[in-house]
C-alpha cells in the first residue's frame, strides 16, 4: 500500500539469491544441511560478509557447501534448457555494477535474508524444496 521505490532492488535481491541457490551443489551437501536448506541458506546470507558481491556470494556458497565445492562453472540442465551458471553470474554482476547498486544490494539482502529466502523457496516450489 505504502509504495517504496525498492522494487527493482527487491527483484535483484531475489535474482541474486536464486543464483546463489543454484550454484550450491545441494546433491553433494550433507543430508542434515540439505534437509534444512532454507534455514541454512538464510543464516549464511545473514552471517556472510564480503568486500563486494562476488566475495559475498563466494562466502555464502562456501558457508553452506563447505570445501566440497564453490562457484563451479558448469552447465546444468533445467528442463530442456541448458543453463550456464558461470555466465549468468557474470552477467548478473555486470548488471549490478552498471546500475551501481552493489553495496545497496548487499545491505538489502543481508538485512532481509529470511523474507527473501522464504520468497525464493515459494518460487522454486516443491521439486527443488526436496533438495532437487
Amino acid at each position, binding site marked *: *500500500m505504502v509504495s517504496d521505490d525498492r522494487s527493482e532492488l527487491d527483484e535483484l535481491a531475489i535474482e541474486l539469491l536464486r543464483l546463489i541457490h543454484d550454484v550450491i551443489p545441494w546433491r553433494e551437501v550433507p543430508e542434515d544441511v540439505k534437509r534444512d536448506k532454507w534455514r541454512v541458506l538464510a*543464516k549464511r546470507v545473514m552471517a556472510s560478509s564480503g568486500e563486494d558481491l562476488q566475495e559475498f556470494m563466494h562466502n555464502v556458497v562456501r558457508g553452506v557447501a563447505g570445501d566440497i565445492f564453490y562457484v563451479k562453472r558448469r552447465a546444468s540442465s533445467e528442463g530442456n534448457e541448458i543453463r550456464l551458471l558461470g555466465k549468468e553470474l557474470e552477467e548478473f554482476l555486470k548488471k549490478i555494477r552498471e546500475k551501481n547498486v552493489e553495496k545497496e544490494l548487499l545491505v538489502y539482502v543481508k538485512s532481509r535474508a529470511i523474507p527473501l529466502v*522464504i*520468497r525464493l523457496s*515459494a*518460487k522454486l*516450489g516443491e521439486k527443488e524444496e526436496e533438495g532437487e
Partner: protein
Amino acid sequence: MLPLGIIGRTQERFGGIPIVTELTQHQLIVATVLASNETLFYAGLLHDILKPAFRFVKNRDGNWKWWHLNYNESGKEVPLRNYLQNIQAISSLNIDKDMFVEIIQCHHPIKRWCRKKSLLKHNPINYVENKLGITSIEATLLPSRGLDNIGLHVCLEARGLNNPYHYFVLTMIYYGLKYYLNKLYEEIFSKLGLNKLVVEYYFGNYSLPLIEYVNGTLVIKYYVNSSEFRGLRIRHEYSSEYSFDMRILREGGVGFTFGWSDVLVYMVPHVSSFGYSYRIACVIPGLVKYDGTKSRDDTSVKELFKDKVENIIYNVIDDLESSLGLSVGYGDVIVKYLEGGEEGSYSCLFCSRRTSYKIRLSKTGLLSEKFTDYHRISGSAEGAEISVCPLCHLGFILEERFRKQGPSFLVPLAGDTTGAIIARDFAGKFSSKNGSIPVNTDEGVILSILGQSTLQLISDAWYQSLLKRTSKASVKLPWMNAYNIRSQRDVDVLRFSFLISREVLLYPLIIKVRPRALISTYGGRNKKFVLNTDLLEGHILWRGEEGDLTEEQLDALKPILREMGKSKIGQLRKIYSRLVSLYGLR
C-alpha cells in the same frame, strides 16, 4: 488485507481527513445512549442505514454531503421513509413504527424529507449526535467537552502514571471492565429484545438493505456500492460472547465476533496537570429519554449506571488478586493509587510513591534470586524506608505469573496507522466527476477515542493471525487469553495475508497498521516484559529466536502475496510454516 467493514462517517473540517470509525459501531453507540426504550434504540441502530450506497454529493459551496435520508427509486428521489415503512421485520419489534420512521427520517435538519417538523428541532438521534455530542469520540482523542458531559461515564481516571506497572495494572482492569460491562450491556439490550446483532456487508451492486428479526436476533444485510471489491462479504456478530474473533466463513467472506463492550468501552490517553493520565470510559446505556417533544439526559440512569460500574471495578480487582493468591488484599486501594493517591511512610522502589504497606524485598521476598533487573529500579527513597506500592506490587506479581514458561499472554493495545489510501473505485468515481473526493488521506487519519478502540481490535486481529488461543494457561482470568504460535493447519488465506500486509479495509478507506501489544514473552521467556516495556516495545512485532518479525521484514515478504497468486492452501501453509521455522517463532 483484513476486510473489517465500511466507514461510518466523514468530517468536513480539517480537509476531509478520514476517521477510523465503522458504520455499525457508530450506529450501536448512538443506539446505546438511546436504549431507554425500544423505539429510540432501534432508530439509533438503523439511522444511517442508507450510507452503504456511498452517495456523496458536492454542494454549491464545495462541501461534500453524504446523502442518506433519501434514495433513488426508478429515477426519482424518494424519502427513506418509503423504505422503512415496508420493512416487515420492524413490525415484529415492539416499537412505535411511525415514531421510529420519523425519528430516522428527520435526524438531520433537512426539511424536504421530514413530515413531523418538530422532530427537526428536537430529534433524539440528532440530540445524541450533536447536542450531547457523543460522536465527537469518533472524531477526536480530546473532545472539547468533558467525557462525562457527552454521554460517557468515566469509569476510572488514572493520573500521574510513572511506571510500566501502573499502566499494566490499568490495562488489566480495562479488559476486566470490558468483560463485565459486556454482560451489563447484554442485560439492557435483551430487555429491548436484542440478544444478538448480525450485520452483513455484500460488496458489488448497491441495493436497499434487507432486515430480518428472529428470536431476538436482528440481521441487517447491507449491499455496498463497490466494483473493486465485488463479491466480498463481511459479517459482524455482536453478542454477549466476550470474545473478539475472526474467521473465514464457510459460505465465503470474513466473519467477526464482537462483544458489545468492544464497541462501547474505551481506554484513552489524557494529558492533565498530573502528567500522563488515562481514562477508561464507557457509553451510558439509556441515558437519553424522549417524551415525544424533547430529548433529555436522565440523571438517575447515570447514577445507577455509575454505581454498577463501581461494583464491577471492585469485582475486577478481586478477580485479579484472587487469581494471584495475593496475601495482601488491596481492593479499593488499587483504585486510589490509580487515581494518583498515595499515603504511608515507605517509598516504592519502582515509582517512588508513598505506601503504608511493607513488602519484603530480600532474596526470599519480592526481589528473589530470579530478579536481575536492578538497572530498571528507578524509585527514589528520599530518606524513607523502601517498599513497593500496591500498584507496582500487583503489577510485579501479575508479570511474574504471566512470564512463566508456557503460552504467551497478550494484552492488545491500540495499533498505529502507518499509511492510508482510498479504494481505487471510490476515488475514481468521484474524482472523474468532481475533480476531488470526499475523503483525503494525504495527511493520514485522525486519531479518535473510538478509533483507538478499533485500532486495539485490529492489533488483536493481527496477533490472532499469528497466534491461537489455548486454554492451558498459568493464570485463569476470564478476560485474558493465552496463546501459542498458530500451527500450519490453523492458517488460512485471510490470516496469512493480514499477517504479512497489515492492511485493513474500512471501505473506502484502506489503512496500514503497526499492531501493538504487551506480550509476556516479548523479550524472551524470562524477561520481565512489563518492567522493560519501554526497552522492548518498538518496531518489533514478535520476537523470534533466529530473527524478529518487524515491519521491515514483513514488507520484504509482502510480494509473496502477489507472487503466490491463487496458490493452493497447502502451499500457503508450507510457506507459513517456513516463516515460523526460519524466524524461530515460539
